[in-house]
């Protein structure tokens, strides 16, 4: 336990000293602010046009200005934006050791390699959880300030869990990013993988098999693609779970056994 706490302390210190912590927070905060702006526009499109917030040609047929729509935007933003932002975080946590050539300092230590990898995964999870809570709390503040109608405590709890489930599902796809950051020894392979996975998720969803493809499921769960949302079932959560365990196991196995010749 001491070794794990030491490794987690080390990972946290690296993250705290990095600019990426602030940048990801600022980047993710765009989500509730953009949601708030949409609510203002949807509440009064004519006034928004007059203020120049939107073009006179804009068609605002989708959505109404209420709390369910606002929370839906947050959830969908986490599924779509989180897939990229969480991947950036994971790629940084794992890939930086190769970019800074520090990986070799982590291999011959009394602290086992699996403990260090475990600490990296825990830090990634906590980081993602922190960002999710941040945008939810900020979202509540913005929603209140904008005075969106239709708030209830029950709705808030339901939406909170929905946002958390979307974030959790998105996080569960990150071990593959960690695997590509480790085996690819840097930032580019995991980011390439992320883009590829998103492209495939779109194609598979269009073909109607999105509920079976782990990288499409968070978006479906968030309700972004309304026509396919009802496809998601227990099997969808199971395939995400399988992807999570395969990614984690492969990352641990790679760190434990792969030649570290560079």
């Amino acid at each position: 336990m001491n070794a794990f706490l030491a490794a987690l302390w080390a990972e946290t210190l690296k993250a705290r000293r990095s600019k990426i912590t602030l940048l990801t927070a600022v980047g993710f905060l765009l989500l509730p602010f953009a949601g708030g702006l949409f609510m203002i526009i949807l509440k009064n499109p004519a006034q928004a046009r007059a203020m120049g917030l939107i073009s006179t040609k804009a068609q605002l047929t989708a959505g109404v200005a209420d709390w369910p729509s606002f929370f839906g935007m947050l959830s969908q933003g986490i599924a779509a934006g989180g897939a990229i932002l969480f991947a950036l975080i994971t790629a940084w946590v794992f890939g930086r050791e190769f970019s800074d050539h520090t990986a070799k300092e982590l291999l011959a230590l009394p602290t086992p390699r699996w403990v260090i990898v475990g600490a990296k995964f825990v830090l990634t999870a906590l980081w993602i959880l922190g960002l999710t809570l941040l945008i939810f709390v900020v979202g509540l503040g913005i929603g209140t300030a904008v005075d969106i109608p239709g708030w209830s405590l029950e709705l808030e709890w339901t939406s909170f869990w929905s946002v958390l489930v979307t974030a959790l599902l998105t996080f569960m796809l990150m071990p593959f990013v960690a695997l590509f950051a480790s085996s690819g020894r840097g930032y580019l392979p995991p980011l390439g993988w992320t883009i590829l996975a998103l492209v495939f998720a779109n194609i598979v969803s269009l073909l109607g098999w999105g509920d079976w493809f782990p990288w499409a499921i968070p978006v479906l769960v968030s309700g972004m693609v309304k026509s396919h949302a009802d496809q998601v079932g227990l099997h969808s959560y199971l395939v995400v779970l399988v992807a999570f365990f395969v990614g984690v196991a492969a990352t641990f196995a790679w760190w434990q056994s792969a030649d570290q010749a560079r």
Partner: protein
Amino acid sequence: MKFAIETNGLSKSYGQVRAVDSVNLRVGPGEIYGFIGLNGAGKTTTIRALLGMIRPSVGSVKVLGQAVGPNGHGPWRQVGHLVERPAAYPELTVRENLEIARRLHGISDKSATSHVIERLGLASYADRKAGTLSTGNFQRLGLARALLHAPELLILDEPANGLDPAGVVEIRELLAGLAHEKGVTVFMSSHILTEVDRLATRIGIIHEGRLIEELEAEKLEEIRSRRLEIKARNLQAAQSALTQAGFAVKTSESTLVLREARALDAPDEVATLLVNAGTPPTRLAVEQEDLEEYFLRLTGEKE
């Protein structure tokens, strides 16, 4: 005898390339072992295998009596290492980098960090970000991390890299002190052969992946070839006189070189011969090849 480092038939291949080929190393406790070789000879691959960073294609590695596996198992609490160029987290300070190492080594003594900072002369840089350090101070940080946990065995790849002349001497004295006073075993690779020459008690020469020579420092002293170097104002006349006296004379730039025992054992007679021939020497000296020359001769890089 329990060796600090023992490899048996250690080989490592990358595809068709045999980076290390059947290397049998034996490094005794308290030795300073200089491991020398040309670029790409297999020094770093061997060091990585000693630290369990790569899986040997064939053979085995034991460090401090414990088998080293590719899965991270090894006596790492007692081993300090520096592999290739040092690495550190650039946005963390020197102290923070070492603090991470202290915790990952499971050292409970919090003063260990400050102690090693003082020892490596990094006190005035302790709160500076590692990314802003000079090459020499970055090297010192890497050495500080290797020494932080007072290891029994140091495995150092080019420890003098990037250090200024004063730093080279300082680190040499530090390593010699650790070996002599505390019985620390030092396994070091270096391309600065004069450093190895001054410090090592035993030397291993690796060439094209094979350990082609392993010898005690005293033995090296004996087997280094000697030569009598002669300079004269009239080099041709001097060469002619020596040849007539039956010496096999070689010319190297503006110097005549004799390697025969009768010349090496009695340079005064050679001087007399040249004086009598009317071409007295302006310089006459018995020179012994240094480690660099011996190494180049052995690896065929120089005749």
